[in-house]
């Protein structure tokens, strides 16, 4: 399966556009394409692919790696489409009966996803002791009537991040009862501390498997029909890559990869490791933080389609402001968005001969960009300047909120609507506008590193010292990254966080460590 790195193709499927780029071994951009995302998604992918292949011509056979970022999984959850019914297994009896699995889920989503829920005895304490022995018989009795009726099982055990033993034994039971073809999602491979959120993520993972399988097949057939023979990687929500086989097992991790990709792309295009990244699209703007070369992750629970999860998602502030946001007068005041002219910007905006004042018109009026016909801006008189001032203030406020400290930080602007952002933003030490800013997403996907992460509770007393504990955490994270395909020679620790547990007399510490490295280039 190993192929040495030559040309890489990055594809990013977003809500509005599908972007594709081709980069050479040194990371130089050879081709880029941007097409509207098609309703069936696949046609958009093929169109973007053809766009870049037309530019590189005969070199297409040199494409060795394909990096793919997609919103398929998110859309499937939001639209409740193509979801698979799964058996929901919690190993947490009797310690967690007080809140049953899927409590609080929207009823129609629960109906679409769950073939039945059970809580069997077992689970771990925070210090690794068993709460109760795992009850394999109880699990077998629950699964037997489901044989032939479910294709997936989601297993979540209490403190799986401390001990995964009961989850692994449950997987054996599921295989024996339901057959080896039934896929089992285990929570310790998916989520972090917080049983309910991890359980939700594990159930979503189990239910999404067919969606990503379908994407995989569409992608394979698109690549095959263009005579491309490359290794395929999927972008994850933390800005790193996973192998195609990994994505098939952990489809839930593809959710939210778009913002992570644009933050990584911004880092790559500027060479900056710590900055605020502003991604301005047609309808909205995402403001995130680049910390040590990676998107900073949110510490609050993330909701997807009404379900609380603890996914590793970038910490973002989203504003309903974009290049296509419509500017209008309302009750004697200037109002902006949330409606946008979207992909019709090049027809409906004033500067392009249309009759709808947009934020793009406001940016042109202020001299931030030289686009279209300035003489047509008169129709927006009295509206455009206050609208832009309002947008600037909203952006400055969001930039300030997303920062972790008072110190001014550099700001990197990417995305198709970048011209909206002024050259000076309060709280920003400088504003960077990299070349190829419009395809930062796809570039982010194609240059992403491969990562491994752990989130566990350690007992520094047992390991001898705090340093010994941190060493072990680093080693485990590195191991994970190398297993995922990172080059062992260059993999490094990119994140290390200690959160001591309150209340205990003997210290216990929750440690999160992440390692990442470039793809093993052979």
């Amino acid at each position, binding site marked *: 399966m190993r192929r040495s790195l030559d040309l890489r193709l990055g594809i990013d499927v977003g809500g509005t556009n599908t972007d594709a780029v081709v980069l050479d071994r040194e990371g130089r951009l050879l081709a880029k394409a941007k097409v509207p995302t098609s309703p069936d998604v696949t046609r958009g992918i093929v169109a973007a692919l053809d766009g870049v292949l037309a530019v590189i011509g005969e070199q297409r056979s040199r494409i060795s790696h394909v990096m793919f970022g997609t919103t398929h999984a998110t859309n499937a959850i939001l639209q409740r489409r193509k979801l698979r019914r799964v058996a929901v297994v919690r190993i947490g009896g009797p310690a967690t009966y007080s809140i049953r699995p899927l*409590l609080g889920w929207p009823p129609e989503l629960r109906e679409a996803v769950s073939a039945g829920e059970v809580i069997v005895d077992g689970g771990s304490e*925070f210090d690794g002791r068993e709460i109760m022995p795992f009850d394999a018989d109880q699990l077998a009795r629950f699964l037997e009537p489901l044989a032939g009726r479910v294709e997936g099982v989601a297993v979540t055990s209490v403190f799986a991040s401390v001990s995964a033993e009961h989850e692994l034994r449950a997987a054996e039971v599921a295989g024996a009862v339901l057959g080896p073809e039934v896929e089992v999602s285990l929570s310790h491979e998916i989520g972090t501390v917080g049983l309910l959120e991890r359980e939700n993520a594990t159930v979503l993972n189990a239910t999404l498997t067919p969606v990503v399988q379908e994407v995989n097949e569409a992608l394979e057939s698109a690549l095959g029909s263009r005579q491309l023979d490359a290794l395929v990687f999927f972008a994850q929500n933390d800005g790193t890559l996973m192998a195609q086989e990994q994505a098939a097992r952990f489809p839930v991790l593809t959710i939210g990869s778009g913002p992570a990709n644009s933050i990584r792309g911004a880092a790559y295009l500027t060479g900056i490791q710590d900055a605020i990244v502003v991604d301005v699209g047609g309808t909205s703007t995402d403001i995130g933080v680049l910390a040590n070369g990676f998107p900073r992750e949110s510490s609050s629970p993330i909701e997807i389609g009404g379900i609380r999860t603890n996914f590793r998602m970038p910490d973002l502030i989203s504003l309903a402001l974009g290049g296509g946001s419509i500017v209008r007068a309302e009750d004697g005041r200037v109002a902006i968005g949330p409606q946008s002219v979207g992909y019709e910007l090049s027809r409906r905006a004033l500067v392009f001969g249309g009759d709808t004042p947009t934020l793009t018109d406001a940016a042109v009026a202020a001299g931030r960009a030289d686009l279209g016909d300035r003489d047509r801006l008169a129709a927006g008189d009295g509206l455009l300047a206050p609208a832009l001032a309002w947008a600037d203030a909203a952006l400055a406020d969001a930039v300030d909120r997303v920062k972790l400290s008072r110190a001014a930080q550099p700001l990197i602007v990417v995305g198709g609507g970048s011209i909206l952002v002024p050259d000076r933003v309060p709280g920003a030490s400088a504003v960077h506008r990299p070349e190829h800013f419009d395809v930062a997403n796809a570039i982010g996907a194609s240059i992403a590193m491969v990562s491994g992460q752990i989130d566990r509770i350690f007992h520094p007393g047992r390991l001898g010292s705090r340093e010994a504990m941190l060493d072990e955490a680093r080693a485990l994270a590195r191991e994970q990254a190398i297993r995922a395909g990172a080059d062992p020679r260059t993999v490094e620790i990119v994140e290390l966080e200690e959160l001591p547990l309150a209340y205990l007399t003997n210290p216990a510490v929750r440690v999160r460590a992440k390692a990442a490295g470039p793809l093993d280039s052979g």
Partner: protein
Amino acid sequence: MVGAAELSDLATGSAVLGAGGGGDSRTGLLMALQAIETFGPVRVVSFDDLPGDGLVMPCGGVGAPTVSIEKFGNGAEGRRLRDRVEELLGRPVVALMPSEIGGSNGLLPLAWASELGLPVLDADGMGRAFPEMQQVAMEVAGVSPNPCVLTDERGNVLVIETVGGRWIERVVRAVAVEFGARACTTEYVLTVDQARTATVPGTITLARRIGELLRGAQADPVAELLAELGGFRLIHGKLVDVERRTSGGFARGSAFIEGLGDDSGRSLRIEIQNENLVALEDGRVLASVPDIITVLDNESGAAITTERLRYGQRVSVVALRCHPIWRSERGLALAGPRAFGYEFDYQPVEELHAAVA
């Protein structure tokens, strides 16, 4: 009656009264939701609805917040506590009561009461959240903490007789760690007549009212809340720094807020030990325990617990008057500034505020 619809208001209000502590009120909310869906709504009653010599059982959970989001409980803990208390005292329990209204513990007794078919007394032991078990109005009023009953999710039950409240905290903490850093307890069981003066009355209704008010608030939820409760806004501003450290089993730290708008140029520091204990400006105390200091999100008015404080949040720091029982000599000895190691005497927040204004 508290049914499923009223629970989220109660959770919102419990978080506000929690003074930054009390843990994630969402797990408590989900537990109560499941119990009420299964066993039906809970009657919230006042003293006059109950026989004067009937037993009230204060109860709740203790332990590490990180553990309670992983191992939140069986649901039958309340029944086991109730059964053992009745057996020990030879009389029926007529109502449950939260030991602590703040955070998750404000909701847990509702889950248990729903299963037991018992009412919940509209009162609690703190009127807020405090870090230690003996920091309750019952201790101030001289109610015996014995018998203290402790249980875990498996069914282990322990009865503890101690020589005083401080020992409950020490022994329960040690046992709870053995149980897996979480336990459910009852202590300071008392009669309805005793409860009239030995608890903080009306706090379930108050928490619900706070939740309703914030849900329906229009322009400035914080101002509407303060007008209703007669509280004080110490500062309106932005969180600019949070320092954290853990020592002696407590999460300690400081939060710094810089004023915005009318408060431009001002800055406030909050001292934290699980809960927000003291608010200071230029070294001068603006509010302190046992008065309730809570950090509210400016837009929603929702409380931000101490572990979720982060740079950049737009907040109002507010202070609410504690119940008068905490302002007594015994109350201050138990939960005043000096009880937390500060070298100053308590002054009521309304006096401090009058001096500033």
